């Protein structure tokens, strides 16, 4: 039975990772806490639901959802965020507005009711794990989380584009001093964040439900994950997702009401004691003299 709970926690962690990795990267390179991510998540959720309802397979629907959200994010970045790029406060406020607008737009088009996600075949079946049925779908979550992690690592560690992104994440100023144009890099990472959030939305439908409040409902969890993992770090996000996923599954198993409260408390404590995240390195060893 405990094996079942742990496996559920890991699948939750995989979902949290996909949900949060983009947010973390976007913060890393833009310094913007991207509330709009919750909006792209919602767009992906509904896009996948719509396609599933019209006969598409799950993977195709999920990839398309990522793409649609990515394009949405790219447009938002270009039209609304880029003009404010020297004004991080304005950008932060704008992403909040984008989240509200996308949430309301989805509400308008599809209505406030909870939609049924049509799942069939293998994905709707279960396997016995530790004496209890375990949804096959959750295994797909774990696989997706793993694949996304590996792809991100390959991109960031294995390509020269990834090297520039990592440089921009560490210090935009230093990157520009090295002759790197950070602006297009930001758009790219922002679009990537949209894709990941949209894909996460598609993954959420079958176990979390399809409804307009889904974006804002998962917002707090994303924040918890990226804070504990350290903003800007993909590896940190993975570890934090595992911590939060397992904590939620285990605490939730014994005291369902407490799970979120415990996680938020963890977030507050981490923010106060280690704002760079549990695994993050102490902020800027090189600038201990800076204010």
């Amino acid at each position, binding site marked *: 039975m405990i094996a079942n709970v742990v496996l559920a926690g890991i699948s939750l962690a995989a979902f949290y990772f996909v949900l949060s990795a983009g947010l973390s990267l976007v*913060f890393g390179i833009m*310094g*913007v*806490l991207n509330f709009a991510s919750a909006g792209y998540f919602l767009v992906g959720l509904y896009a996948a639901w719509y396609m599933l309802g019209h006969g598409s397979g799950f993977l195709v629907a999920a990839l398309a959802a990522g793409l649609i959200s990515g394009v949405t994010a790219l447009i938002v970045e270009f039209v*609304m965020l880029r*003009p*404010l790029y*020297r*004004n*991080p*406060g*304005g950008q*932060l*406020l*704008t992403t*909040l*507005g*984008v989240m*509200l*607008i996308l949430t*309301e*737009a989805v*509400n*308008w088009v599809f209505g406030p009711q909870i939609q049924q996600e049509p799942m069939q075949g293998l994905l709707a079946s279960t396997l016995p794990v530790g004496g209890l049925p375990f949804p096959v779908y959750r295994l797909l979550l774990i696989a997706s989380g793993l694949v996304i992690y590996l792809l991100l690592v390959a991109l960031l560690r294995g390509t020269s584009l990834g090297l520039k992104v990592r440089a921009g994440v*560490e*210090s*935009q*100023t*230093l990157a520009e*001093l090295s002759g790197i144009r950070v602006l297009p890099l930001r758009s790219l990472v922002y679009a990537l964040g949209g894709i990941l959030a949209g894909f996460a939305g598609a993954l959420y439908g079958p176990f979390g439900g399809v409804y307009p409040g889904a974006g*804002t409902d998962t*917002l*707090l969890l994303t*924040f*918890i994950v990226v*804070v504990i993992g350290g*903003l*800007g770090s993909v590896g940190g996000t993975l570890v934090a997702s595992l911590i939060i996923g397992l904590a939620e599954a285990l605490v939730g198993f014994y005291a369902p*009401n*407490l799970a*979120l*409260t415990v996680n*938020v*408390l963890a*977030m*507050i404590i981490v*923010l*106060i004691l280690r*704002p*760079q995240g549990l695994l993050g390195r102490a*902020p*800027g060893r*090189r*600038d201990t*003299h*800076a*204010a």
Partner: protein
Amino acid sequence: MPRNRLWLPPLALLAILYVVWPWLGGSPFLVNLITGGVIWGIFAVSYDLVLGWTGEISFGHALWFGAGIYGVALLVQATHIDTMLAILIVAAITAPLSFLVHIISLRLRGAYFAMITFAIAEFAYLLVQNATALTGGTNGLTGIMLSPYFLDPNFLYAIPAALLLIFVLGLRAIGRSRSGRIVHAVRDNPTRAALFGHNEVLVKGITLSASSALAAIAGGLYLAYQGMAFPDAMSSNTGFMVLLMVVIGGADSIWGPAVAGIGLYLLENSLTSTTAHWSLWLGVVYVLVVRFLPNGLGGLGPRRLWAPRGQTAILHEGAGQSRTKVRESNLE
């Protein structure tokens, strides 16, 4: 009369008209609606101290509104004291509490400050929802014994308006005083202000604690208005809403957020029944204001009345840039 006092007579006239209007046959529905709007106006003014005066973005202002709602509800329930007195006591308790919370939160800036205020408010929201024995959980607290004057809709309508007027005039005066100039100097250039001996964290902490006390007063009035306390009033949505009001009204102008608070509340509660997509348009207007009107809609009006004293740092180019990321070095 000096020229800069010219607005006084029309304002006094407006105030008198406002107060006697229900007795002259103002529609009870409208009286009730406006009461809610004015209370939100106070709440918005309190948030202007955060966004406009300290230049920090907090996503957790709903916490202090909720502190007023639940604080007054519990205090009145336990002691049956006068409601207005309870509101003042709760505000007085909220101030030092908020000071403490913000001194800790101010270790972080920019997006990190936004996040910790958000997290603390959500934590409190979850506690209120789960501490069923004390707060009634999601069922809320009902049957609060309010003082008789709050049960008369015409008084309920006049009291918040009087308070709003006092707060707006008082804060405008403080904003122009030496203390107000210090607050603005710290916001615009903390490094330079520090050279003159003004501790940034202390100045911002005091401003934020005053802001929370005002928010608690708004919360207490809101309790009197609703007659009951529900956790929803302190959800993140409340925090977002008040931020929208201040941005749209124009941060740092005090008047702007007051008017935007009243106006947007009225619009929301009269339009939601006619167009279901009011929030969508609100979001669009808000995003446009952030992009094109750093001084909000208030900035469009006659300068004398509206224009903020200094620039609204948070919404202007380059403001707060250096402090957004914890890890960035002194290169920034």
